[in-house]
């Protein structure tokens, strides 16, 4: 907003005066209270934010974004919420991400496309395999579920 804009506002005759103005004010306050009551539990929740695990596929392997280890072992905590974000960096080859033990699977992705897999990790520790369905012999890795924090 420019200085010019402020001057125009200041010079303008108030249009929301009188009884109509008061009613509008009450309505706005009510909307604000309702809105806050919905949003506050989310913003001040004591639960940890959903953890993001960013994976890319390239040269027929999964990598953590920026990582150099093919098909890395991924450690999750029992009971936590995580979000896998997969991006395909293999042009011309369609990949996906599946965790068959948990019956989870993304769509097949073209180059540079992304997909998200939201996972509520079970409470019991153990191991799962993550993989790319059409290239599972080369593109598979281990998910280790360890006891929660």
């Amino acid at each position, binding site marked *: 907003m420019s200085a010019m804009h402020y001057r125009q506002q200041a010079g303008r005759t108030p249009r929301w005066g009188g009884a109509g103005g008061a009613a509008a004010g009450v309505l706005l306050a009510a909307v604000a209270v309702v809105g806050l009551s919905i949003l506050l539990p989310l913003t001040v929740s004591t639960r940890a934010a959903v953890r993001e695990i960013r994976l890319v596929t390239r*040269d*027929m*392997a999964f990598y953590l974004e920026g990582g*150099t280890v*093919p098909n890395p072992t991924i450690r999750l905590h029992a009971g936590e919420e995580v979000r896998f974000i997969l991006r395909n960096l*293999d*042009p*011309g*080859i369609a990949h996906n991400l599946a965790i068959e033990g948990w019956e989870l699977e993304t769509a097949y992705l073209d180059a540079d496309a992304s997909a998200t897999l939201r996972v509520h990790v079970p409470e019991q520790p153990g191991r799962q395999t993550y993989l790319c369905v*059409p*290239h*599972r*012999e*080369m593109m598979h890795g281990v998910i280790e579920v360890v006891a929660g924090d």
Partner: protein
Amino acid sequence: MTQMRNRVDPQTRSWSRRAWLRLAGLGSLTGGVALASQGSAAGQLDVVSASALDHLGNAMGPVGRVSTEFFDPTRFLRTWNFSDLPAEERARFYRETPKSDGTTLREYQIFAVDREIEIAPGVFFPAWTYNGQVPGPTIRATVGDHMRITFVNQGSHPHTLHFHGWHPPGMDGSLPAHQVMPGESFLYEFDAEPFGLHLYHCHANPLKRHIHKGLYGAFIVDPPSDVSRPPADELVMVLNGFDTNFDADNEVYAANTVASFYMQEPIRVQVGQLVRMYVVNLTEFDLINSLHLHGMFFDVFRTGTSLTSSESTDTIMLCQGERAILETTFRYPGDFMFHGHQSEFAELGWMGLFRAEGNRDT
């Protein structure tokens, strides 16, 4: 060349070729306009007018560029045994271990995978590939080395690895029983011999489809170190073609897959330095292919199995699977064209340039 081909009226045929070229040209021009890289859109569109296209003689190939993000024909020329990859990534696909008898154990991870590849600007081909590239990775050993090649089929059809060279019948990858089904693996083991320039390709049926879809590569076996070839700038060229409309005839030709690539990115060589070309013909559907180099001659070592050149020429003819090592030294700086001497192939992409740099060799 099929009987079907002979029945087609030549006039009709040439027009369909032209129509196809026009389509490809339009595609790449549209791409150029979208990128708005150079020239006004109106200027680009002027070029598309039919009369202009018929006389685009100076363009010498397609307009626009192919992405080299995952396959760079310039890099392919001088890459073998995955030498272009950083050590950590290379170790996924290649390991060498010296043996006590002075030879080397060479272990490879080769996989088949379906991939859509760009063979001319904006022209994509649904290929079957070894390790995601066409031609497949160049495999190179010294005679007597032990080869251990793990093949994983991650493609959608049965495939094999069939090497040319000495090996036991069980390692031939050719009979129906040798087929490696999707999701399965096979370990090929043999000693690399004889020394020379060889090749490998898929031998699953129907063979012509499996080869033309892109399942082939060069296999170089060097002579023993005590008689090794003189040092040279070494270049691998696989002559290939692509049947983009599946009529058992090629619409696009190239050396190393990308039509006319080396016209736009000439192969840089040094005046006075020995240049050695490893040329393998894997063109399907056409009976022969050839290589002609302008302005100079080269020494020919057919199949590379002798260290003595059999002829000096400027044009060689190769049937499918035939190969030759060519050696020459550039005498003058400047650009030297090379291409298949079937003019049709040349104009459909099998044409390139050497750019010799340095002072005239006297």
